[in-house]
């Protein structure tokens, strides 16, 4: 490595080969900084966590990481997830209640997240590496928010500036639109503490930034919005295909979770076909069911749907991020399914806009994605979230898929093309340069 390259320590618990929803932002961030001339060291969770706890990996994602990025995986304890008694230590094996109480004490007194052991080991490893060859900046992404605590601790020990990237919110429950913790919970103290020392705090949309600015006015000037974006190395919008002439395919691409109005989407779709609008259309669901190994069975039951690969609603299964273009190519209309409040932005919306096909929204009005969709030429939305309105919007989107001319499609693609990850990350990289500027 060249000695004049600024050195970035990037704390990203979820990083490829994990396929958790946040890894695309983390991967793009590491790649963007490496391409911008930084010497990037990533600290991520150990493989065992991805293999055994989340059970969700995508090796193709790890292959796509810039080879210049150094990836390290500090260890962690698996107390909260360990079910194999052969792996229990002497204390837990002989006195499980005492071991549990010790674990709970650490959650109360050390850090209120089960990932605190990973953060502690990341701090120890960072100190060793920093002594050998100093870093210039720490960038931490949450969740888990133990990475923010680790960045704070590294800063306290070494004097390094740090940036917190709120991929998700910590103390705000995005789905209930309310505080995530009761008053007096240690998370509040920790957020205040890490916010006070941070060089910058980054949020995925303005609504989240504003909420935090109101709560931490002293840090408001250091807050910025860095939205998600689509990844040109994973998706070629032009290869996403021209409209077909057969029955329309409505498609949802992304992870399905219980927080999304899946039932409303299916009911709306069936109401549309039953009313005679695009009666032969199919609804194709591409993606994983939930983020964890045990999720699919639970979600099948929660959705109350039988996905059998046949009929009008077809569960097409997971699709690798690197092969996602094939799913878009088969679709005529894209269904944007989002759960939660105005603070929720789905990263998928950027890919949806990039391919230039009609998009029909299935979410409560006021989603954080709406300001971006407002100027998209092929956006259709229900006035309210019920089957009848969803059916109407879907029918209109289907009509547009049949009738939109190449000029409109081109305008849609051009609009979406502006939302690449690199474009979104540029201001963050510039801010990082400013913070690290005096050091190199």
């Amino acid at each position: 490595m060249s000695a004049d390259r600024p050195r970035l320590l990037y704390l990203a618990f979820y990083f490829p080969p994990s396929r958790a929803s946040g890894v695309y932002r983390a991967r793009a961030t590491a790649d963007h900084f490496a391409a911008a001339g930084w010497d990037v060291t990533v600290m991520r969770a150990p493989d065992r966590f991805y293999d055994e706890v989340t059970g969700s990996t995508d090796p193709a994602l790890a292959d796509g990481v810039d080879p210049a990025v150094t990836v390290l995986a500090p260890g962690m304890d698996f107390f909260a997830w360990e079910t194999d008694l052969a792996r229990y230590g002497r204390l837990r094996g002989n006195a499980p209640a005492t071991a549990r109480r010790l674990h709970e004490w650490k959650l109360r007194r050390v850090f209120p997240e089960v990932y605190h052991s990973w953060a502690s080991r990341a701090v120890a490893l960072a100190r060793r590496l920093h002594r050998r060859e100093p870093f210039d900046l720490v960038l931490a992404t949450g969740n888990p928010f133990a990475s923010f605590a680790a960045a704070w601790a590294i800063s306290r020990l070494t004097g390094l500036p740090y940036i917190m990237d709120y991929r998700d919110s910590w103390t705000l429950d995005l789905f209930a639109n309310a505080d995530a913790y009761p008053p007096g919970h240690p998370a509040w103290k920790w957020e205040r503490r890490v916010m006070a020392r941070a060089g910058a705090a980054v949020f995925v949309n303005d609504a989240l930034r504003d909420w935090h600015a109101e709560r931490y006015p002293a840090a408001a000037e250091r807050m910025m919005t860095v939205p998600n974006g689509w990844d040109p190395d994973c998706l070629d919008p032009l290869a996403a295909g021209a409209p077909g002439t057969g029955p329309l395919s409505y498609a949802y691409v992304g992870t399905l979770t219980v927080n999304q109005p899946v039932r409303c989407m299916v009911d709306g779709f069936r109401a549309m076909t039953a009313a005679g609008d695009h009666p032969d259309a199919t609804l194709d669901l591409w993606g994983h069911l939930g983020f964890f190994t045990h999720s699919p069975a639970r979600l099948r039951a929660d959705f109350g749907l039988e996905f059998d690969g046949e009929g009008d609603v077809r569960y097409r299964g997971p699709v690798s991020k690197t092969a996602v273009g094939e799913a878009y190519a088969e679709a005529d209309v894209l269904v944007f399914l989002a759960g939660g409040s105005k603070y929720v932005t789905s990263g998928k919306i950027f890919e949806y806009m990039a391919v230039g096909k009609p998009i029909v929204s299935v979410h409560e009005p006021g989603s954080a994605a709406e300001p971006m969709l407002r100027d998209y030429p092929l956006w259709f939305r229900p006035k309210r979230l019920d089957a009848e309105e969803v059916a109407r919007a879907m029918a209109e989107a289907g009509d547009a898929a049949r009738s939109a001319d190449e000029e409109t499609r081109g305008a849609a693609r051009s609009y979406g093309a502006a939302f690449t990850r690199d474009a979104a990350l540029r201001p963050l990289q510039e801010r990082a340069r400013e913070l690290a500027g005096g050091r190199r």
Partner: protein
Amino acid sequence: MSRVVVVVFNAGQVRKVNAYVEAAVGAGAEVTVLSASGGQGWGPGRDLHPAARAVTVGPAEHRQPLVWLYLAFVEKGPGVLLRRAAGRLPGPAGRACGKGAALHAKAARTIRRRLFWPAYKVVRGQALRRLALRRLGDLGLDGAERVVVVDEAAVPFGWALARRRPGLDVTRRLDRTLYDPPAPAP
């Protein structure tokens, strides 16, 4: 036919265990449940699923020296003496003994809740481990696919078992979905 051993020492988990047994037996598995049924804190109405082969260390739990002494000298002995005296002594003495028996029953319940359980539950896992290890032969572990340790009190036994038999899968996961019919491929 797969064979599973379920270990449950806490009566509060019986409903979960029975649901698991039902799913496993329904899927053709043979289930043995090692429990503390009839032992300390295991009241009536906590019957295990009849489809499971039951092995219990409950009666042996009562015979442990400290538990036996506590039961004899704190809970049962004084009560028996007072009730017997109430039946035999005439007049005020008999009535006093009857009242004493009622007071003793109340005090014994309080002592059990406030003193005996808080102290005993700390060592109950170790005490039951010793008893359960003596019943290993009854569990049929040689053909067992896994041993499921349901509650914290059973962990010391499960941990000792995992160390004695490194090839045996001893787990805390009471996962009924293992017996769900396979989901159709997308």
